[in-house]
């Protein structure tokens, strides 16, 4: 089945062949994979998807892979959890958590995009992959490069959390720490990508890479029983994920896999210390004003998001909104999810929970409508964020009487 028409400029519509390019030569608009939906209709069905593997590759027909999957065979199909305790806490009827904090193999949704990008890099015959990263992407590129026996160059801001640095180095990449913000690392990588013939997953492979995010959206709908939720709250950094989840829902509609109309409202969640997309939404303008990030949510600390314009348009088109979260609210959000649902997410997840709570309190998200929270990364990677907030443990000698005393103390403290 011939399912791809190469690439197409998202702005001016010019066509390009399937190649490792990402920018329209004429208007600089981003290139996007162009699918032949007519060839896919009737071929991709609920049944054909259900017969696929328990991974994101059950949607392979809707991803830009020509041959076999090369790396990351077990990525995706993460749990969608009915969060009853969190719903009680938020005063809502129906809350779900799409939990990519347990995505195999590197515990974030980035495995979805990287497995597509690295498979594609091998298809195009590259021997080196690279990326600019705020951490999660670094982990995932290094891991999948190891699996694909490719060399990898990973560029990160030098002040990245130690957990994310070690969880990259372990796979044996060349890790380059750049003294600067992520946006500076990204600009540098754009120039490096122009000079060296590497597969930069978020530069020249961006059209393929970003498509992997759609699987997060496909799974939400399938796991809800081919139902679309009324609201999806998505953390935004570069702004690609929210755009691609929306695209996923639209594709399912085009292919006739969902019955209802496009009723889902997409909401953007960002930190107050780095929230240029939410600022666009609040000011209702399509002009992005870049910011210098200052937030504990380092995985979202992109002050000049490449897909900011499209993220804004997604919220607008779907009738959604957006909300900022302060660092304090981010920590509260992490603790709330952990203490209600037993899910330990990283700071980005705290942003999502906090923003959702504010949207609910503002009445933007009605309490009786279904809500999906996209939790995209794991808390064990960023424990520093909670260091000052958690109570000290009870320390005792190994005797029953010592425990009895400690327990009595605890009870007197809480009574």
């Amino acid at each position, binding site marked *: 089945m011939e399912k791809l028409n190469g690439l197409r400029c998202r702005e001016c519509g010019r066509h390009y062949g399937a190649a490792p390019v990402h920018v329209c030569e004429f208007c600089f608009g981003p290139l996007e994979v162009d699918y032949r939906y007519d060839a896919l209709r009737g071929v991709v069905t609920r049944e054909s998807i259900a017969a696929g593997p328990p991974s994101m590759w059950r949607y392979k027909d809707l991803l830009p892979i020509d041959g076999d999957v090369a790396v990351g065979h077990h990525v995706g199909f993460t749990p969608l959890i009915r969060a009853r305790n969190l719903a009680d806490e938020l005063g809502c009827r129906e809350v779900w958590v799409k939990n990519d904090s347990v995505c195999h193999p590197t515990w974030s949704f980035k495995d979805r995009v990287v497995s597509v990008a690295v498979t594609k890099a091998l298809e195009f015959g590259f021997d080196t992959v690279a990326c600019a990263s705020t951490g999660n992407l670094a982990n995932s590129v290094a891991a999948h490069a190891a699996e694909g026996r490719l060399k990898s160059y990973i560029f990160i801001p030098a002040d990245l959390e130690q957990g994310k640095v070690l969880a990259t180095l372990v796979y044996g990449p060349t890790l380059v720490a750049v003294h600067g913000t992520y946006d500076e690392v990204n600009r540098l990588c754009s120039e490096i990508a*122009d000079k060296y013939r590497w597969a930069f997953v978020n530069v020249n492979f961006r059209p393929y890479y970003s498509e992997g995010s759609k699987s997060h959206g496909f799974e939400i709908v399938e796991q809800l029983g081919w139902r679309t939720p009324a609201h999806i709250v998505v953390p935004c950094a570069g702004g690609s994920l929210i755009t691609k989840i929306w695209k996923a829902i639209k594709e399912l509609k085009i292919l006739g896999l969902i019955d209802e109309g496009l009723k889902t409202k997409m909401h953007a969640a960002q930190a107050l210390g780095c929230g240029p997309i939410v600022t666009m939404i609040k000011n209702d303008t399509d002009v992005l004003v870049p910011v210098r990030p200052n937030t504990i949510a380092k995985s979202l600390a992109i002050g000049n998001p490449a897909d900011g314009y499209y993220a804004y348009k997604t919220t607008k088109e779907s009738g959604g909104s957006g909300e900022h979260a302060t660092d304090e609210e981010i920590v509260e959000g992490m603790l709330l999810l952990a203490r209600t649902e037993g899910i330990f997410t990283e700071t980005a997840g705290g942003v999502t929970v906090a923003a959702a709570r504010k949207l609910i309190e503002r009445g933007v998200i009605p309490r009786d409508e279904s809500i999906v929270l996209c939790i995209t990364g794991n808390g064990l990677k960023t424990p520093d964020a909670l260091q000052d907030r958690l109570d000290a443990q009870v320390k005792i000698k190994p005797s029953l009487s010592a425990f009895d005393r400690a327990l009595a103390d605890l009870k007197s403290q809480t009574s």
Partner: protein
Amino acid sequence: MPVLVRIPTPLRTLTKGNAEIQAKGGTIDSVVDDLERQFPGLKERLLDETGELRRFINIYVNQEDIRFLQAKKTALKDGDEVSIVPAIAGG
């Protein structure tokens, strides 16, 4: 006042394959005009119909995004480096 301008791959068809160009001008605006004089057609690739910088192009002076400076009015001095960079994805 010559400055060094780095040209990204998509524009090199217009600059005869050159990745770095010497250009004259005291501001970004006037450098763009000089680039157009040297390589006709370049200006319309950088600016839209209203004369604004296209949405998906970022320009940096000595590594600083000009939106943090005075945008297209940003003053340039001898030896400054101007980079033209397409927007790229993140994470």
